[in-house]
């Protein structure tokens, strides 16, 4: 009998101990969450861009340069809440599997505080789901696919990833803005064509552009759609095929070496005397090609990312002045759109950490930073940027026409038109194509 009581008592004590220990544990945890000290160690930031391969020269290296430049600036200004940034540049080459492995390693083994990265849409689509799985913050900085944050059908729930973000708008804005620009400046054209690379990027870009054009200018006829492979070195057959079908304007999302090769060979074949190009991501190439770049081409800046653009608000305008001058001083070129995208990612993180820290009174957890990022608005060299509750950037978009001037050794953009964010981005929870199709 007494034995039994003892056992019962024992169980009771054990239960009580367990309960109190649990309670203590919880209270310790909540205590540490509300008043966490700010660590003195540096913040480990992984920056993943193509450092080799076809996308390195046009995007990866300018993006990586900017990450370094911005990290230096943040550190010189005292870091984020006094903590310095320790930047780890990583190569995005190697394909999706390699990137998934790398992201796991960065978050789990190397204990990175955040990953800022990815130019390829395929890499973004594969890596962003890891943010929630591994509990680490990932901010996509340059990839374009509209599918990344969208659900299967409209309306869809947001956000798709709790800890996954993209600090820029998707390719929808480029192609919608191009279509709006064409409607405004060339309302009488009858025939369009497209030349886009034969993979998701090219196909998606053309899909959005064609859908928007058919909605805005129903009389338009599509006379040719060409799909050269990525890394094509001979465009002569494509150029002749386009010239033979006599379109007024040709849409293109060609990038990097392909954009340069196409332009050079087209110039040699007298293409631009007859046809006007509309490039959804054409901003870097006039500077790349110099005075050989033809005048009169429609060029979109993937946002308002242009070194001659002055944002309306003072804070952004000051940043733009510093950004253009500093980049040119360091790298001998004017910043191109991937540079602006890199700025947006690293400063989105900085502003979100500072905002979250104010709310929680100490260094925030990834969850708290995520909460602060959603709905955050901050100045950037291209103007005020908002990260929406779908965790996607919300940006205006600039389109212009190339024109040679005496001031620069390459054509600059004339007749610049800025399409406000509300006009070029679909509303939260609506798929881009559904949104365009709903236009009245």
């Amino acid at each position, binding site marked *: 009998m007494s034995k039994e009581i003892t056992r019962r008592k024992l169980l009771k004590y054990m239960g009580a101990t367990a309960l109190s220990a649990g309670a203590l544990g919880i209270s310790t945890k909540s205590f540490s969450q509300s008043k966490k000290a700010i660590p003195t160690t540096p913040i480990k930031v992984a920056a993943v861009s193509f450092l080799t391969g*076809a996308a390195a020269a046009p995007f990866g290296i300018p993006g990586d340069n900017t990450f370094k430049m911005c990290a230096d600036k943040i550190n010189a200004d005292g870091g984020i809440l006094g903590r310095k940034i320790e930047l780890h540049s990583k190569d995005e080459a190697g394909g999706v599997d390699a990137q998934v492995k790398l992201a796991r390693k960065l978050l789990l083994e190397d204990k990175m505080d955040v990953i800022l990265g990815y130019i390829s849409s395929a890499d973004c689509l594969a890596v962003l789901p890891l943010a929630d799985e591994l509990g680490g913050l990932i901010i996509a900085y340059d990839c374009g696919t509209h599918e990344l944050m969208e659900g299967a059908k409209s309306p869809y729930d947001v956000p798709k990833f709790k800890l996954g973000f993209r600090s820029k708008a998707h390719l929808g804005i480029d192609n919608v803005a191009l279509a709006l620009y064409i409607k405004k400046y060339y309302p009488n054209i009858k025939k369009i064509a497209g030349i886009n690379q034969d993979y998701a990027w090219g196909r998606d870009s053309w899909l959005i552009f064609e859908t928007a054009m058919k909605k805005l200018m129903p009389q338009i006829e599509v006379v040719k759609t060409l799909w050269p492979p990525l890394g094509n070195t001979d465009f002569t057959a494509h150029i002749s095929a386009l010239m033979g079908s006599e379109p007024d304007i040709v849409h293109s999302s060609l990038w990097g070496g392909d954009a340069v090769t196409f332009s050079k060979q087209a110039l040699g074949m007298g293409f631009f005397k007859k046809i006007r190009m509309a490039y959804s991501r054409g901003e870097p190439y006039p500077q790349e090609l110099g005075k050989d770049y033809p005048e009169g081409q429609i060029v979109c800046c993937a946002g308002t990312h242009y070194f001659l653009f002055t944002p309306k608000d003072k804070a952004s305008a000051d940043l733009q002045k510093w950004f253009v001058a500093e980049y040119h001083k360091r790298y001998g070129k004017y910043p191109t759109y991937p540079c602006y995208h890199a700025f947006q990612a690293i400063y989105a993180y900085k502003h979100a950490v500072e905002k979250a820290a104010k709310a929680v009174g100490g260094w925030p957890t990834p969850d708290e930073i995520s909460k602060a990022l959603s709905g955050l608005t901050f100045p950037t060299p291209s103007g005020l940027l908002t990260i929406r509750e779908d965790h996607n950037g919300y940006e205006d978009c600039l389109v212009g026409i190339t024109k040679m001037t005496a001031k620069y050794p390459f054509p600059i953009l004339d007749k610049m038109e800025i399409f406000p964010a509300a006009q070029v981005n679909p509303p939260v929870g609506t798929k881009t194509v559904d949104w365009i199709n709903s236009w009245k």
Partner: protein
Amino acid sequence: MWIIYILNGLYFAALLFFISLGLNIILGVMGILNLAHGSLYAFGAFIAAWIIIALGTHVPPFFLYISLLSGLVGVGIVGFLMEKSLIRFMYKRTLEYQLLLTFGALMLLEDVIKMIWGGQAYYASAPFVLLGKVNIGGNVYPAYFLFVMFIAFIAGLLIWLFMSKTKLGIMLRAISLDREMATALGLNITGLSTLAFVLGAGLAGLAGALVVPTTPALLGFGHEPLILAFIVVVVGGLGSLKGALVGSLLVGFTRSIGIAVFPEIELPLLFLIAGIILVAKPEGLFGR
């Protein structure tokens, strides 16, 4: 406009002819299917781009065109080193070993390119721009493309003369016809094999050098041409100069007209043609 379609077809055929010629010599004489051929082509492009950029405007334009030969010489040397260190051990092995080894060489060469020239693009368009344009029946056409066609014609002629008229060429053909008999007759197989490989590699390098003024040299430069060169070899027949010529023309024209008329199936069509020829005439149109 049709004259331009024909010229486009000819230009592309000229490039393919160059690339597949080297592939064909190596395959015909040595029986080696060289998967690293595309990388040798890329190597030639990088060497030439690097020299053209270095020369810049310091020299008369004539030297820029001479400098394109650096692809031939540079990659010829690479080919020599490759044959001496890797390929020579493969002559008596079966095809699987050759494929594994040459695929390894492909990746190795890509990494060497990355080590030497880094990840960035090299723009060397001076030779393309300097030649300007010509007017053909009211259409503008870059003169450089005509230059490439001319060089391909000359190279084809020289290789044909070399193979059919010189003693060295006849010895190479003897090896390709019957290696054992050639050995029995006392031909210096080791030396001749090295020569064939150096020649094949050099031609790939020259092709890369000729292309680079029209498109930047980038990593992964040789992948697409390698696939197309294989189609040419399949269509034309292994080890046949005539086959390489006809195969190149067929692929060049199918692509040029395909893009103009049915762009969605231009590439599948090429593979379909290769497939049909493989089934109907497995040795290729002019193969033995």
